[in-house]
């Protein structure tokens, strides 16, 4: 199955989607661009701090609802620009949680449990203000009836705890992650930080994995301690070198500061941004074409030093 087919089969209009990665690292960008090319709309997106992927999906008009903790791309956009614009212009509905809460919500989904508890956000507006009203929630059977629940500790002050926040599980129709190594069956090895990818992957009904390398099954089996996602979760595995570009992929390449600065500039202006989408995304029919358009020289600049996992001398 190639990426076009995987996106066509699993990422439907109106579906509930989650994408892996964090701000400008290991976002599944090849898949994000393919979703934009296929003009899939009305997506309900779950993220924690996935900056670049979220901003491009929002910018291209694919997203109608967004549950998120953070929309930022590090130094390149302390608040993601198209995200900011879309919320201010009320083009998307948004529900705010914290990073831990979103991570727990994916964990709950992966565990097959309805909610998980935390002490985070007590006393804050994350509890008091709801982006999705009770009515909206009631009309939508794919949403829990409440954003979150504050509960008295039923184990009488156990752990010196009086109150607990319960956050509801997320079960996406499909999660897309980009990993360093996978085998054809779908065993995955993530190198470096896993962010919440493992929980997002295991929570979903369908999992699309894009990877830098498709490796032999025996290669992964020779070191099972390092394989975080067993094949039984995966619906599709697709080999996409530089599949996280322009985000970084630890051990393979760095983020591309030129691209991200240019993106931030274009994102600030509607006409420029539409030109960016047309020329960078729509005019290139595959990620390979997109990479050719960017140019081999740029990819050389961000190639990771093997000893460091990033481009040691990259001008940023």
């Amino acid at each position, binding site marked *: 199955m190639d990426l076009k087919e995987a996106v066509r089969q699993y990422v439907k209009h109106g579906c509930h989607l989650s994408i892996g990665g964090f*701000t400008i690292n290991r976002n599944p960008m090849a898949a994000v661009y393919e979703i934009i090319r296929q003009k899939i709309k009305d997506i309900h997106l779950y993220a924690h701090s996935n900056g670049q992927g979220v901003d491009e999906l929002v910018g291209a008009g694919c997203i109608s609802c967004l549950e998120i903790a953070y929309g930022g791309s*590090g130094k390149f956009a302390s608040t993601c620009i198209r995200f900011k614009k879309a919320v201010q212009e009320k083009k998307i509905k948004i529900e705010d949680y914290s990073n831990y809460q979103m991570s727990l919500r994916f964990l709950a989904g992966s565990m097959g449990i309805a909610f998980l508890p935390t*002490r985070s956000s007590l006393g804050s507006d994350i509890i008091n203000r709801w982006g999705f009203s009770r009515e909206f929630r009631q009309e939508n059977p794919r949403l829990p009836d409440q954003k979150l629940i504050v509960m008295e500790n039923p184990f009488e002050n156990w752990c010196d705890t009086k109150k607990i926040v319960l956050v509801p599980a997320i079960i996406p129709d499909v999660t897309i992650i980009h990993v360093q190594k996978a085998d054809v069956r779908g065993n995955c090895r993530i190198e470096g930080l896993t962010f919440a990818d493992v929980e997002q992957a295991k929570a979903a009904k369908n999992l699309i994995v894009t990877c830098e390398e498709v490796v032999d099954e025996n290669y992964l089996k020779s070191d099972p301690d390092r394989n975080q996602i067993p094949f039984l979760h995966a619906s599709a595995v697709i080999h996409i070198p530089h599949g996280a570009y322009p985000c970084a992929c630890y051990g393979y390449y760095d983020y591309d500061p030129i691209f991200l600065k240019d993106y931030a500039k274009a994102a600030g202006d509607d006409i420029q941004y539409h030109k960016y989408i047309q020329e960078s995304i729509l005019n290139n029919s595959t990620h390979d074409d997109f990479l050719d358009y960017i140019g081999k020289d740029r990819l050389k600049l961000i190639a990771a030093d093997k000893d460091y996992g990033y481009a040691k001398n990259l001008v940023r």
Partner: protein
Amino acid sequence: MGYTLKEMMAIAAAREIQNSDVVFCGTGISMLAAMAAKNINAPESTIFFETGAIDSKLEDLPLAVSDSRIMYQASSNGGLLDSFAFMQNRFTGKHVVGILGAAQIDIYGNLNSTVIGDYNAPDVRFSGSGGACDVASFVSKTIIFMKLEKRKFKLKLDYLTSPGYLDGPDGREKAGLPEGGPYRVITDMGVMGFDGDSKKMFLKGYYPGISSGKILENMEFNIDISRAEKMDAPTPGELTLLREKCDPQGLIL
């Protein structure tokens, strides 16, 4: 030796870090402050990221908390769940000093990093909590970076993203939060602390060339300035280490 206000801020924050601290840091100046502490006054302190890296070596300045530079030679690379559990954990969480930024702050150190205006129809949308609300909920001490402006030091926040002392001395307890709370606010004019009894912000120190009065002019609410002292300028030694060891490419400074 001349210095910028950004340098003063980074050094002022670094001076608050102890060797036994585990420093939670975000992007930008907070990352620089953590690196400065480690390189200048608290070499045994541990740098820690919400993305799951503990004790990163940081040969190069990261430009995001997900930057591959934080993964290089950490003591442990986990995930988000590991890092937040580390802070919610009663034994390890108490060693964590969180460094945060925000768009607005009030007198009890509550922070807004979500919206200006109505939540459901905001005038300005910011990034949102990220891990800030979690850190502010869990850990024993937070240090907050803020530019001193009237629109930022607010009588009332437009949205309370990250809990400080909420509405006063027993605010956190009433809400069900663990102990802890804001410890310092590092601004571009001076440094604030929080009163042990009232939990209200007070002026602790002002930078060379700045007056207490000027600081009050830039805040919507009044704070006690009776305890304020003039702070030491960064030493040449501090500045050299900051510039040459922490940010030689001038990415943040």
